[in-house]
Every structure is written in C-alpha cells, then in structure tokens.
C-alpha cells in the first residue's frame, strides 16, 4: 500500500465516521420528538403487544409514513426517524462508491455498487406496494 492510497483511505474513513454519527444523531432526535408527541397524546392508553396485528399502511410505506409525519402524528414522526436511521448505512455505502472511485480502485467500486444495489433492492420492496 503506497502513501497516497493510505492517505485517501484515512480521509474516507474519517468522513464515513462523521456521516454515521450525524445520521444517528439526526434520526435519534426525530424519533425522540415523535416519541414526546406520541406519549403526550397516547400515554394513558393501555399498551399491548401480545398479539401481532402488523402495522397499518400509513406506518409501513414511504408515502404513508411521510404523510402521517407531515400531519404531525407522533407514530408517523417516529417511523420517519427510523427510516432516516435505516438510510444512514445506505448513505455510507453510497459515499464509499465515490471514495473508492477517487482512489481509482475500480474493483472496489464494483463491489460497493453490488452492496448498494442489494440494499436499494431491499428498500425498493419497501417503497413499492407492499
């Protein structure tokens, strides 16, 4: 490994570290804000998770979640924060494509694109009609 490569590797790793930290901080704040609204409105209802019912459409599709978060529904905002959290590692992989390209490492650009494609395919199943 020559000096130029290790330098960009280090820069890339630092940027990735900051990206991950920012993503987690942002999503945790959104989840917390949604949680406060949810607890104020529903804190005194009874909690029961014994029976699995599955979530309603507005809490499991991209459009539904954005719609209910926009209406300031506590549960909708929490779900939006969780979506941001799931997007954080995806953003990390997308950034690495650029990072390996900047190092002219074609082989790892291809590997990273494969990982990105797998992630996006999984999320596309989520964004589409479920």
């Amino acid at each position, binding site marked *: *490994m020559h000096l130029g490569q290790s330098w960009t590797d280090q820069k890339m*790793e*630092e940027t*990735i*570290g900051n990206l*991950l*930290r920012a*993503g*987690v901080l942002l999503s*945790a704040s959104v*989840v*917390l804000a*949604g*949680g406060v609204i*949810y*607890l104020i409105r*529903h*804190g*005194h209802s*009874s*909690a029961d*998770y*014994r*029976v*699995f*019912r*599955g*979530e*309603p459409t507005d809490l*499991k*599709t991209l459009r539904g979640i954005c719609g209910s978060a926009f209406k300031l529904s*506590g*549960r*909708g905002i*929490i*779900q939006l924060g*969780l*979506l941001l*959290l*799931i*997007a*954080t*590692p995806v953003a*990390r*992989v997308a950034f*690495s494509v650029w990072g390996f390209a900047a190092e002219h*490492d074609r082989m*790892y650009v291809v*590997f*990273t694109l*494969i*990982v990105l494609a*797998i*992630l996006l*395919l*999984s*999320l596309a*199943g*989520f964004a589409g009609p*479920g």
Partner: protein
Amino acid sequence: MSVLEFTALVWTGSLVAGLLGSLTGLGGGVVLVPLLTLLFKVDIRYAIGASLVSVIATSSGAAAAYVKEGFSNIRIGMFLEIATTLGAIVGAFLATKVSASSIAVIFGVTLLYSAFLSRRPRTKQEREVPPDPLATRLRMNGSFPDAGGMRSYNVQSVPTGFSLMFGAGALSGLLGIGSGAVKVLAMDQAMKIPFKVSTTTSNFMIGVTAAASAGIYLNRGYIDPGLAMPVMLGVLIGSLLGARILVEAETKWLRLLFSLVIALLGAEMVYKALTGRI
C-alpha cells in the same frame, strides 16, 4: 399497563441491555428480544423489528468512533458485506414464512451458542500467516496501530469467510440481531484477521447488514413505532455510556455474568417455544 409505564420500563431495560452489551463486547441486541418476549410479553415479531432498528443505531454510533481509530478494514468489510446483505434478505424473507415458535427455538439455540463462543479464549495476537493469493488480489491485507507502531497482517481463506458471512447475514435478518459473534468467528478464526481488526470491522458491517433486512421488516409491518422508540433510544444511550466507561480489567467478571444471562435466556426461550408458550 399504560403506554407511559410500558415505555419507561422498556426504555430502562433497553438501556441496561445496551450498557452491558457494550461493556462486555457481546452486543445488546442479543438480550433484547428475549427481554421483550419473556418479560414484557411482546410478540416475537414486534420484538425482532424493534431489535433490528436498535442494532443499526448502535453499530453506526460505535463505528463512527472505531473507524477513526484506524482498526477497521473498510475493504474487507465492503467485500464481505456482499455476503451479509444477501444473507440478510434471505433471512428476512424466511422470518415471514416461519412460525413464531420456530423462530424462538432458533433464537434460543443461537443465544446458547453465543454464550459458549464468548467463553472461548481469544486468539493470540502474535499470529504470522503467509499472504494468500486471492486475498492479495482482493487487496485485503492491511495494517493497524499497535503498541509498537503499525503492524501489518495477511488475510486467509476468503471463500470460507464469505460463506460464513452469508450465514451471519441470514441469522441477522431472521432474528433481528447483529450476529457479531458469527462475524468475528468468520474473520478471526477462518480468515485469520487480528482480533481487534475483526471486532471493529464486524461492528462496521452490522449496520449495513441490518439495513438490508430492515426495509423488508418495515414493509411487512413488523416495526411498531411505539415499541421501537424506547428500545432504540435506550440501547443507543446505554451503548454510548458503555463505550465511555470501558475499563478492560473490570469486564472479565461482567463478561462471565452476561454470558450466563445469555445462556439462561436462551434455555428459557427454547423451553417456552417447545411447550407452546411463544
């Protein structure tokens, strides 16, 4: 129980799980699902959904620190993520097909195995292996900061490691855990990567692996915001606290205690599932 009480209790429990998981290096996700299903009587599918989300949070939070220290190898991580993400998708689809009690049995057995793995002695740091042609072609050999300056290492058995990683991904997608123990096993034992590099690279990979199955869980309605909120916030704060107060010498007994807890929870999950109570 009211939503307020439930949220406060689940948050506290998740905080303790995150704290112990980070102090012992065994991961908090592994005790979350048994905690939620056995103690709080949550359906295992909701529990797995919430756990998966918290796994992404802790992995991304901790990786931010590790990556900067220069221990994790981003090339090894990225290459093996091809295997873990594919496995995670397969695991998440399996989770929607398999019954809740079968998932509980697999979960319990995994817990027992992780408890066993955590009692095995760590590999010696001084391990010299010759360079492997495939690993060299894949530019996986690297170096990491050590007491005496930078130490370089060679990577072995890439195909074995890759297959084990597929299994780790599937387990993660099926059970909503990070399956860090299997990832470290693949890298440390099969690929002969130094322990410190293995654990930090594993942590780095966990978030991406979990993200691959999280979309499917969300789409299937397995992620409930009311439950995931206290779990995610609790585990995240607990693990960040744990990373701050990490004292090597004190963790030996804690590790033993925590692996005993994991083994007991595993046995109880298998027992309850087999007697038809999960």
